[in-house]
């Protein structure tokens, strides 16, 4: 068995004295792990940093084997994120979420594209909004997508400002007003109505929304918590609110 693909490094774990087991999010093969001989060496370590884009060749005698990777660095992400704590947390959080949530060897080209777009957004100033969008995409990709197109109660498509924590559907201002303490806030930018203007409160509300459903649908059934970096990212963006 052999394939060549491009991908992003999600995690690199030491194996023995010199090798590493590397998990990649690849464009055609999904999340895929393999052994990298000499992965802990000075030369290879730099290429195996989380978020780096690499070209990988995976080889194994049988499909079910762990297999061995030959990895070549395409572009380094961490060098661009030095001194950018928010972006660094977003990168860690996204990588850890994919590592925790996406099943191995299940092709997910949509998620690959959205992950790639997220990393591309770190060059600009709207990376935090892109991150919230990305988490929404992640929920959709794993089968827990939110329906933000119309009100769950009345079916109207205007003035949607809440989300039901039970159904994951949008709720209009009028229908949700009596229950607003129990509903989650739907930030305007997630409806695509506020243009490029995204406030700190919008971002905090967006992360609260996606975080709630990630916890409820994905982590709670596995008796786990959201990754630390995700919690710290939400805290950091809330502080800037």
């Amino acid at each position, binding site marked *: 068995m052999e394939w060549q693909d491009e991908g992003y490094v999600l995690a690199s774990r030491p194996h023995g*004295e010199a090798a590493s087991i590397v998990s990649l999010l690849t464009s055609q093969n999904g999340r895929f792990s393999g052994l990298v001989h000499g992965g802990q060496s000075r030369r290879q370590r*730099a290429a195996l940093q989380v978020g780096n884009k690499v070209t990988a060749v995976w080889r194994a005698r049988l499909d079910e084997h762990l297999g061995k990777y030959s990895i070549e660095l395409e572009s380094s992400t*961490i*060098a661009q994120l*030095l001194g950018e*704590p928010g972006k*660094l*947390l977003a*990168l860690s959080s996204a990588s850890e979420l994919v590592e925790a949530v996406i099943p191995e060897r299940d092709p997910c080209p949509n998620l690959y594209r959205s992950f790639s777009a997220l990393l591309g957004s770190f060059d600009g100033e709207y990376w935090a909004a892109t991150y919230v969008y990305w988490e929404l995409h992640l929920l959709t990709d794993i089968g827990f997508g939110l329906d933000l197109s119309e009100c769950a109660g009345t079916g109207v498509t205007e003035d949607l400002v809440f989300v039901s924590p039970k159904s994951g559907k949008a709720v209009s201002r009028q229908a949700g007003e009596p229950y607003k303490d129990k509903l989650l806030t739907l930030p305007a930018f997630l409806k695509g109505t506020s243009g490029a203007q995204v406030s700190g409160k919008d971002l905090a509300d967006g992360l609260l929304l996606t975080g709630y459903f990630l916890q409820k649908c994905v982590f709670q059934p596995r008796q786990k918590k959201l990754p630390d970096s995700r919690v710290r990212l939400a805290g*950091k963006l809330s502080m800037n609110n």
Partner: protein
Amino acid sequence: MNSIDKLIHLLARLPGLGPRSARRVALFLIKKHESLLVPLREALGEISNSIKNCEVCGNVDTNSPCQICCDAKRNSNQLCVLEEVADLWAMERTTAFKGRYHVLGGRLSAIDGIGPGDLNIEKLIERVKDREITEIILATNLTVDGETTAHYITDCLSASNVKITRLAHGVPVGGELDFLDDGTLTAALKARRQVNSQL
């Protein structure tokens, strides 16, 4: 298992040694009984009885506080924060730093399940309350986890009035640009500094 097999088995667990090299080392030790095996046994016994983690900085030494923490000639105003004891030894080899150290004992890593509570961060915050310290040098590794740890510590210490600095990243001494990876070059470009033409 006789004692020689046991020795080979234990030696094979050392980093860099497999069963074959462990047999060579064991034979060598047996041949050099008086000059190597006996002193090694004594040194190992001494170390196993007296080694401890420094209660102040987290370094390993036979005394607590360690030699570095007890050295009155060192600059108590500067505190260098490191991930591991091996990093402290690397810094000491340079002889360029004369301040004091704080070893975290790892770095934040959700993948490995290491959170702030697993690291020596609370003690660092306690140390920084000491008014003697005016500068914290964050010397964690340039990895995503290392950088995240550095930012976390910066957040924790933001309320204190100490100056927080980070080790520079860039072209290594003797390095040629042609052979550097893109990441290192990007980091070097970001950390560029003005050239001073004055003497």
